[in-house]
């Protein structure tokens, strides 16, 4: 199949893995589509014979071939779509798997809109390219060629004039339209994504937008994005509308029929019949082109986005494992940066099991980055973070997650039940255990309650309950009490400390809350790119 080579130009390497298993089914579908087109032409040939000699045999031929064509086109549709669905499913999972393994600093560079569209629009954009393009190319090449042969055989070379309207329309779709709309298409796609971003930001930041008035902020950018979209569309449509409308009208059978009749009316009924029926041979595939070739460039762009995304290196991991309790977490000559800024430089520190360490420091010093690096979610510039003597990057990723748990800053919960929020890591946890963890986090809430109804402080305690629930020996908490009152804070910090002491857990908390610092076994300050005990 010649189109495969062209394909690999469109769809780059990481995607071919997802595409390869789909190829046999895709080939079957394409073959069925081609055969469907040919059997239909056979039926038309029989029909011309019917008009010539009015025999029953030929009319049976017409019926049988049209039935075969219908079966084949149905089979083609089914198998190409099945092949494509498999491809999309594999691709979607590859994207998600890669996404979940990217360092936090990489995610900062990719905005949500791009990430979301990788998982939805970009995968959908490839649908046409994979499911429809092969069949369309084959149909567009084979069906017209065979019908031109029939046409010339019956009415001679001058019959080729019948093909003029279809050919002109095809020229429009294949040459004029792509040329004109290439620039506009890109512009439109840009404005389109601006609209989606504008809506997203507007809806998410609705409170801020409301308070600061409709004329500023996201609604204004929404209105300007949509105005630009409409404006751009109208300008573009004005440019192409007349040519497009002419192409549409040429594709109506009226045009072809008029020419066919003008050429063949003196050649007898069979010749007129052939002119009329086969003359539409180029029109039918051109009609499909009329649905647009935009999807080819859309698919190409999607493939490019996906390739860029797959090029982002994931967090390294290997196969080392570590003991499941009382593990030492240490920074060895670690240099760590956040953007251009140094967080720590050549710093050594050992976080011992059975100890609760609280790290404080001025805002923007890079506390969150440090904690992420300790969790193995951010790479160090030099030196290494080690767990029980093993470099974090050498660990098996699941083992790393079983050993280290990070509670990220801020409070958020999945919009589902409290129970599902607690059992993300282990769906089999018994309710009694979950309730005990909630009690330790001082959160009185029903397991079946919807987590979306919780207040900020309650969501934060839901996150803390997860930390009480896990058996991981290393717990890292980023500003875990920012939304809690001092009483609750004190109680929870005490509980965490008890956990460190009684079960030998290594607990590191980043917090600027003096209540936390006061309870710490060790209190560290981030200062001048290193960790030190405050005087």
């Amino acid at each position: 199949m010649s189109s495969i080579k062209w394909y690999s130009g469109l769809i780059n390497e990481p995607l071919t893995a997802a595409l390869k298993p789909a190829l046999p089914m895709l080939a079957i579908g394409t073959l069925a589509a081609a055969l469907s087109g040919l059997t239909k032409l056979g039926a038309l040939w029989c029909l011309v014979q019917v008009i010539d000699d009015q025999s029953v045999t030929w009319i049976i031929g017409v019926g049988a071939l049209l039935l075969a064509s219908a079966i084949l086109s149905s089979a083609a549709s089914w198998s190409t779509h099945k092949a494509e669905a498999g491809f999309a499913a594999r691709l979607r999972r590859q994207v998600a798997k890669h996404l979940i393994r990217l360092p936090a600093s990489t995610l900062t560079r990719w905005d949500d809109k791009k990430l979301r569209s990788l998982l939805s629009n970009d995968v959908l954009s490839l649908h046409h390219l994979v499911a429809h393009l092969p069949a369309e190319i084959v149909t567009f090449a084979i069906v017209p060629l065979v019908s031109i042969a029939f046409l010339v055989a019956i009415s001679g070379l001058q019959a080729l004039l019948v093909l003029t309207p279809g050919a002109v329309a095809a020229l429009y779709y294949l040459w004029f339209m792509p040329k004109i709309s290439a620039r506009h298409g890109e512009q439109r796609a840009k404005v389109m994504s601006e609209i989606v971003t504008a809506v997203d930001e507007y809806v998410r930041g609705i409170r801020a937008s409301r308070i600061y008035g409709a004329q500023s902020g996201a609604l204004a950018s929404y209105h300007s994005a949509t105005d630009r979209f409409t404006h751009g569309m109208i300008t573009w449509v004005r440019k192409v509308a007349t040519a497009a409308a002419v192409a549409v009208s040429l594709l109506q059978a009226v045009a072809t029929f008029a020419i066919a009749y003008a050429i063949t009316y003196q050649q007898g009924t069979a010749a007129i019949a052939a002119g009329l029926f086969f003359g539409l041979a180029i029109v039918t595939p051109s009609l499909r082109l009329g649905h647009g070739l935009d999807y080819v460039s859309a698919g190409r762009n999607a493939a490019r986005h996906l390739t860029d995304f797959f090029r982002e290196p994931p967090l390294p991991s290997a196969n080392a494992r570590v003991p499941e309790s009382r593990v030492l977490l240490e920074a060895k000559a670690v240099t760590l940066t956040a953007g251009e800024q140094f967080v720590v430089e050549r710093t050594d520190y050992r976080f011992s099991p059975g100890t609760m360490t609280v790290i404080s420091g001025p805002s923007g010093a890079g506390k969150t980055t440090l904690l992420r690096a300790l969790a193995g979610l951010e790479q160090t510039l030099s030196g290494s973070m080690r767990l029980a003597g093993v470099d974090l990057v050498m660990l098996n990723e699941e083992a790393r997650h079983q050993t280290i748990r990070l509670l990220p800053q801020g409070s958020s919960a999945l919009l589902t039940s409290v129970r599902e929020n607690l059992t993300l890591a282990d769906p089999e946890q018994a309710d009694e255990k979950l309730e005990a963890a909630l009690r330790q986090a001082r959160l009185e809430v029903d397991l079946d309650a919807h987590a979306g109804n919780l207040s900020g402080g309650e969501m934060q305690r839901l996150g803390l309950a997860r930390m009480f629930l896990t058996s991981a020996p290393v717990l890292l908490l980023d500003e875990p009490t920012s939304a809690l009152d001092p009483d609750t804070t004190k109680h929870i910090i005490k509980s965490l400390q008890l956990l460190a002491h009684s079960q030998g857990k290594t607990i590191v908390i980043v917090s600027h809350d003096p209540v936390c610092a006061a309870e710490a076994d060790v209190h560290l300050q981030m200062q001048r790119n290193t960790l030190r005990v405050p005087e």
Partner: protein
Amino acid sequence: MNASTLNEKSTRKSPFSRDSRNRVLAISLGWIVVAALEATAYTTLALAIVHHHPPVTVVTSAAIAMLMTVLVTRAGFLSGARLSGDLYAALGNALARAKLSWFSGEHQAEVMVLAGRGIPGFMSIPAHQLQSLLHAPLIPLLLLIGLGLVGGLEIMLVAGCLLAMSLGMQFFAQRALKRIDIERHTRDLNTAQSTQELIDHLELLRNAAGPVLALKRIECQWEHQEQAMARINRGAAIAVFISALAGALPLVGLASYLIFTGFNNPGQLLALLVLITRAAAPMEELALSGLVINDLRAALKDYHQIIDAPALPEAGPDEVKQPEGYGLAATQVSHSPMLHDISVDAPEGARLLIVGPTGSGKSTLIELLMRFDDPERGEITLGKVPLAKIRYEDLMAHIAYVGQDPVIFTGTLADNIRIGKPHASDADLEKIARYVTLGSVIDRSPLGIEQPVGHQGSALSGGERQRLALARALIKGAPILVLDEATSALDQNTEKEIAKIIRRLPGTVILVTHRNETIWAPTHTIMLGG
């Protein structure tokens, strides 16, 4: 867009403006004329074949039909573009009106699907959908008359029966597609929602569930979606088969009828077969467009649901009052589930502290004071005027607000602050940013105040995001400043610094905090939840 055009548009009942409606009607009429001219051209051709006419009349009638097609198609393309503009504007205004409690995760995902796919899809209504809906069904009806003219009443009746059968089969196929398609639409929405969940909670999911289990929830959704898609594919393949049969039936049926009844005039035979082929052709088109039209109908339904999102009642022009001053008061306000008979008095210049255990409704009370929703019972007034009697723009002009989770937009530091005062100069922006101790952030990049803050502020720390939101609130210079845990991520010294700035403000400050209450020197305090 200024406030008056916003209001004008918001009072409009239908999302389609009168201009759009008239344009759509004119184009509908155009498609009917095109159908009539096209049917005439085919019938002229058929009669010419039977009577061996020279091609002049055939070519002329074809040229007229084509000219009309060009005109109507062109107008259709243009009004499609205008229509999408109208719909986007209506969506933007509906979102601006909808009350804040409406913006749930589910609705957010629906809005995203509508803006990204639904509305661009509506653009094809005038040029394509109207053609399918008017031109396609009219052609067979008009060509039946042509069949009658060429072959007589009996053949016209046979052809009519065959076309009706073909239509019945198409109808069956289309109904099946519609049923399947509704499900596909639901699946798409669910997938969009769970994709959003994965992206929004990426950090939570990968930390809480780990690299393998994090994808379990979205995987579950995908599997449902893929099963549904496989079912849709099977249904679609059967529908494609039936529709292909339906397309062939009139031609094969009429040809067989004529041959078996001993018809032996080749010219007349060809003329009849040409007419029945053209009469049957649009039905295949109808079936193919079935999928698109079902999509469109579902999208229109979603569109109406979003456009009709609940809004808070606005006072009529006669009832509107201007607040006298900016004293804020609530009398015996109740709002389930947390607030019962709460009264608040914040005279001009007060520093009102709202305290209470977590979950006692502090944020809800603050939101009611800013009319994010109306309380179930009781009344809230600004300058002695009930909030419902004040134009929303006037109310908002009085208030600046920083919430628990500061909203930072993707853009630069300057962009984020400028939202508070659109015409502020760059120097003013930098001044206010340094005032709220963001100097170190400004100085760490050569771009200064123009440095990007990453996606939704992800390049900033929690404390920096809060101070940025605070800068935005301060530059607005509103008489009432509302701070809901707005300094929770700051270290103690920075928080003290900020409190000092806030204390110097001449206006009213309403704040929720649960630590260091004294640094704010409140003049009034309200206890919630006992």
